[in-house]
């Protein structure tokens, strides 16, 4: 804040108009935010590969630098100096624009995240809608990549990805609507301020639906149908090489972290924590710690669960998540109206109770309809472990 004030003063001393200096300040702010996020991605790529390696009982990157920490820097250098192959028959406009649009759609989300009490890009009054809208831009980028590559696997993968993203936007939007009802505002800052009790406690079911939907929205395992190697070679970015492939790669890893940031802003109270109001810098630390926890959960799921089939993916959304989200919305609305006059403690307990009851009912229905698949065990379940001291794979039966 002081930096922006100082810069504003500097600009007005140079005789720059007031509205122009605001414009320039926003430009500088977004450039700084984008660069920092992209640099952080290098670290996330390394950490994710390391964690996944340990989950799968491998070492992960361990050659470049201590614990292989500079592996992604080496990869980046490799990608920079690689030959940039443009296949013949591509549609040049969409082909070259697609990676830029995909990265931009990921970075644009950062503009609305409140990083601390005073530090936020833009206190947009329709931030929640903006969040969903930016997802739509990403879809356009993926379709452009799939079409522009002039490759049938890329096109199929783009179809899958966009169908998945459009479908999973619906339960996400409905859960966001529930949050808007509880906080009474569409601005991210107001949503954070409304969380005296974090919404994950008030809406455990909503948080669960949102988390699953955001994994699917990011196209990560177990929902990584768009890049199912065994079916589609490598997804919509087959024909890309060099720096352009690097942009898709960065977008993929960055999106995982940014959706964790969004989750912790919406459900875990964002920058709030003891002492965060008085020391704004502490808010950023809290936000990053919370996001890292959520992000680790996502990586854990990615490392453990096998991929769904495409019909299963559609069924999960349309027959389970969407009806459940609509039911949750209706229940929260009615219950909120019924106990409106009661104290805040009673309200909170009503919400938690209703959420848990809904969750129990849906689990019961799932359990009732499940069909058991007979699994014939071959050999022993015990297996040798490469690193017996690894806490993640200590159990000889894995996990």
């Amino acid at each position, binding site marked *: 804040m002081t930096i922006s004030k100082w810069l504003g003063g500097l600009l007005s001393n140079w005789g720059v108009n007031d509205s122009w200096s605001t414009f320039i300040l926003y430009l500088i702010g977004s450039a700084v935010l984008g660069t920092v996020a992209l640099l952080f991605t290098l670290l996330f790529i390394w950490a994710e590969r390391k964690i996944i390696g340990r989950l799968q009982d491998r070492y992960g990157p361990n050659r470049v630098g201590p614990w292989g920490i500079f592996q992604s820097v080496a990869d980046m250098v490799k990608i920079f100096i690689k030959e940039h192959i443009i296949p013949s028959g591509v549609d040049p406009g969409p082909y070259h624009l697609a990676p830029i649009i995909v990265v931009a759609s990921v970075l644009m989300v950062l503009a609305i995240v409140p990083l601390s009490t005073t530090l936020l890009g833009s206190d947009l009054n*329709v931030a929640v*809608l*903006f969040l*969903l*809208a930016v997802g739509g831009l990403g879809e356009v980028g993926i379709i452009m990549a799939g079409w522009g590559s002039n490759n049938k696997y890329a096109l199929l993968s783009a179809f899958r990805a966009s169908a998945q993203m459009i479908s999973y936007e619906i339960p996400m939007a409905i859960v966001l609507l529930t949050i808007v009802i509880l906080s009474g505002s569409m601005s991210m800052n107001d949503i954070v301020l409304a969380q005296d009790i974090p919404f994950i406690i008030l809406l455990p079911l909503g948080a669960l639906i949102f988390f699953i939907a955001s994994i699917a929205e990011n196209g990560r395992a177990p929902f990584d149908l768009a890049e199912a190697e065994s079916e589609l070679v490598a997804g919509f970015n087959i024909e890309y090489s060099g720096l352009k492939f690097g942009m898709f790669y960065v977008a993929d890893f960055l999106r995982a972290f940014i959706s964790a940031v969004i989750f912790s802003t919406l459900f875990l109270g964002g920058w709030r924590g003891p002492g965060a109001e008085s020391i704004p810098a502490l808010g950023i630390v809290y936000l990053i710690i919370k996001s890292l926890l959520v992000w680790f959960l996502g990586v854990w799921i990615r490392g453990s669960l096998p991929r769904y089939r495409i019909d299963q993916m559609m069924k999960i959304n349309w027959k389970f998540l969407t009806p459940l989200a609509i039911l949750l919305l209706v229940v929260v609305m009615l219950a909120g109206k019924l106990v409106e006059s009661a104290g805040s403690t009673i309200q909170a307990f009503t919400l938690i109770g209703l959420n848990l009851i809904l969750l129990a009912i849906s689990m019961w229905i799932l359990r009732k309809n499940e069909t058991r698949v007979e699994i014939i065990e071959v050999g022993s379940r015990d297996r040798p472990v490469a690193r017996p001291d690894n806490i993640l794979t200590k159990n000889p039966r894995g996990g």
Partner: protein
Amino acid sequence: MSVQQVIFISFALLTVFSAIMVVSLRNLFHAALWLVLALLGIASLFALLGASFFAAVQILVYIGAIAILLIFAVMLTRNIMSDEVTQTNRAWGLAVLLVSVIFFIIIGQISSWSGFSQPLSEFTYTGQETILALGKGFVSPSGFALPFETASVLLLAALLGGVYIAMDKGKE
């Protein structure tokens, strides 16, 4: 020139250029992508007007849903009209004439109105007021509750109708 004017002019030029591309390109897929750009330009004009709700809804509904639907439809029906065949009918000269005549009539008519060159001031409501007003207007019986309900019935009918019409009955 102020920032608003520069932003307005650049986005207006972008929008008009992409709109012209939409109606003139032979490759329909490119036309659909230019349509996305035109819609994005219009969304930023909405934001400039202070209607941030509609800017977000514009991106969400038009780009996230309608444009993607159009792109899918283009892909599903593409091989029939190849890009080499001319995409316009013979009436284009007549159409240009007609359109420009209508343009001058419209501008001539509205420029005589007193509020035509009224400068628009900066929008003062930047919080939740506009959205709350819209929401209350939509659900209050003295406001627009009936149009709102009718619109929801229209959307449901469109959903069912779309599924029914596009369903492949021959292969059942």
